[in-house]
């Protein structure tokens, strides 16, 4: 794989697609198997306040299972070229969401293409996995 090629796990929460670097992923679990020390990261609750994370079935565990990303669907691996990344800036970004490294358009069978956000988990880790 070239320097520009990186592997990600794609997941969906509240209709929004996310890409987490595969190197951060420990395993995927059923959310009911959550361990007490795992901090839940609920993007669905962030993009639709009040929705809550209870409908989300999957947990993507990261950082030695200290963090668990809630997901409606886990869509599989994607190998991406960094040159396809589209930079995000203010006003899309602010002090709270700088964990979004970039956006990227992904081809999709049903929707033509979909915008996905590339996550920078180290930013979330610095904040003890709080959104």
């Amino acid at each position, binding site marked *: 794989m070239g320097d520009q090629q990186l592997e990600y796990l794609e997941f969906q929460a*509240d*209709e*929004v697609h996310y890409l987490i670097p595969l190197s951060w992923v420990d395993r995927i679990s059923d959310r009911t198997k959550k361990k007490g020390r795992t901090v839940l990261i609920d*993007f669905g609750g*962030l*993009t639709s306040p009040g929705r809550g994370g209870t409908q989300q079935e999957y947990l993507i565990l990261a950082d030695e299972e200290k963090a668990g990303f809630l997901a409606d669907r886990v869509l599989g691996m994607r190998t991406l070229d960094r040159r396809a990344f*589209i*930079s*995000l*800036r203010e*006003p*899309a*970004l*602010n002090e*709270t*969401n700088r*964990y*979004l490294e970039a*956006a990227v*358009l992904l081809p999709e069978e049903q929707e033509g293409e*979909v*915008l996905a*956000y590339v996550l920078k988990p180290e930013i979330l880790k610095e904040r003890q996995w709080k*959104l």
Partner: protein
Amino acid sequence: MEIIEVKTRDRVLYIEKEKTETLFMNPKIWKIPGAAEEILGVSVYKGRLAVYYRLGSERDAKCGILMKTQSDMAVGIAAEQVAGEGEINREELTEVIPGIWERKSD
């Protein structure tokens, strides 16, 4: 100044024509996690990101209006209807975001 009048679900806005980059139908607008309340979402237009301000319409709006910017990211609004074009006195208006105006409420 020359304007394009557009209607969102609950506002009438006047878009400065010379600052308008494009107007197009059925924009695909995605949510931005953690964005400020005033931000409706983002779309991709000719390889650039376009950020939409929330000025009355939602992500299923019928048209998108993007403004010219110096940066590599466009900004714009979503609206339901283009109501017409014309000239309007700047003094009757107040600027909501650069290039997008509405009538002063007195």
